[in-house]
């Protein structure tokens, strides 16, 4: 018998999130969609993405600390930019580094929707488009609905595997950080090598990735494979 993911299990949620992102990206005619969750301490975790493009743009916001998803998280509503290069808009000025990164990937329009459960900001739903076009009313409402569906999914009751449980329902929620797990492992390694705090270790990695114009994930990979080392007292 084919083994399917149990409703509410980590794999199931990940699958549903990815499916939601794919459906919405297709129906709103964009080139990438992504779900990024944000932890209590502010760690950004990309837990679903429809393409490398979407992952890259979410990651670059983690690296740069700016961008539509960063602003949408605690903002009053979605952040919608139909054309990052519009000289009349203040967006490129607002996110100079992110705008440059988007430009390199030929992305012209970016949209980010907060994912909220009651008053709690859980993360953001990002959509990226290579053409300089805004979302029409129908697409906008479709994307809003997707963000609401994601929020609902994240706090839906979990069905456990334990048939002995009379209810079969638990409320333990687990969402994978596997996508970026090695970035955090690398931060632990750099923390020991450079003898700094873990926050400083992450900053060192970010600064290096930014200076060398490589992805944080790629740099983390080098750290884990010990192809790149920090030494105590040196910047790198």
């Amino acid at each position, binding site marked *: 018998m084919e083994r399917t993911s149990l409703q509410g299990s980590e794999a199931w949620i990940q699958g549903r999130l990815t499916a939601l992102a794919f459906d919405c990206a297709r129906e709103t005619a964009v080139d990438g969609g992504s779900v990024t969750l944000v*932890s209590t301490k502010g760690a950004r975790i990309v837990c679903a993405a429809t393409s490398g493009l979407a992952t890259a743009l979410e990651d670059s916001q983690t690296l740069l600390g700016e961008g539509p998803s960063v602003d949408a998280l605690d903002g009053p509503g979605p952040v919608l930019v139909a054309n990052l290069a519009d000289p009349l808009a203040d967006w490129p000025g607002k996110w100079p580094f992110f705008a440059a990164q988007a430009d390199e990937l030929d992305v012209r329009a970016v949209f980010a929707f907060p994912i909220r459960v*009651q008053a709690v900001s859980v993360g953001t739903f990002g959509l990226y488009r290579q053409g300089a076009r805004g979302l029409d009313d129908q697409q906008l409402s479709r994307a809003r609905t997707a963000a609401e569906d994601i*929020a609902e999914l*994240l706090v839906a009751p979990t069905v456990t595997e334990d048939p002995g449980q009379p209810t079969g329902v638990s409320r333990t*929620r687990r969402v994978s*950080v596997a996508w970026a797990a090695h970035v955090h*492992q690398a931060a632990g390694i750099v923390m*020991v090598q450079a003898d700094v705090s873990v926050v400083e270790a992450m900053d060192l990695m970010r600064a290096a990735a930014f200076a060398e114009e490589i992805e944080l994930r790629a740099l983390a990979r080098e750290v*884990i494979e010990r192809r790149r080392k920090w030494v105590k007292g040196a910047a790198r």
Partner: protein
Amino acid sequence: MNAPSPDRDAQLARRFVALADTLVDEYDVVDLLDELVHAVVELLPVEHAGLLLRDEDGNPQLLASTSETSRILELYQLQSSEGGPCLECLQSGAPVLIDDLAANAQKWPEFARTAQALGFEAVHALPLRLRRDAIGALNLFGPRAHLSDADLQVGQSLADMATIGILQQRSARRAAVEAEQLKRALDTRVVIEQAKGVLSEFGSVGMDVAFEQLRRYARSRNSKLGEVADSVVRREISPEEITPAKDRH
């Protein structure tokens, strides 16, 4: 008396619309219940209505009442020692209808006497039903009166509406708690990965071995994995303590 009339139908419709209005986003359950008790005295042959709701420990609390007099409160408090129709309804989950306190309340003599002294001759209690349990009770006090089937239907519908409102608010609160837990769980996962990195670098071992060391250490001390990982990353526990000498390279 109080047979369904076009008048009452109109009142009923108006009251239900008002109740539905209080069920919009971010409503306050107190507003809903207040609206409800006032609707009940308008629609049924009763003078006073109060609503008991079980708190998180299961103890009944008076949440809404058409009158604030301390003597009415006494009626509820009395039931905590002697028992009473409202409590019985809460316990059984079934309506308790006493048309005439003078003739039919031998079970609760003190309660009956006090109610009568306040001018009430009849007491009715309708459950706020959740499956077979009652999460609360709608209590009606008034002149000697038999509630018709239509009256009971109206009263129970209002009670059911209150139940829906209360459950909705509870589930909203639960969802918010869930969301906070999710965000904290993400931090736990992040810190475990960071601690793996620390142990891996310290002991020159792979991530799998590092994780196994972390887990063994947490188990041996009956600590949570996330808490141990957090202590490692904050340097409150030295990696030497966790990494067995034989595992070091």
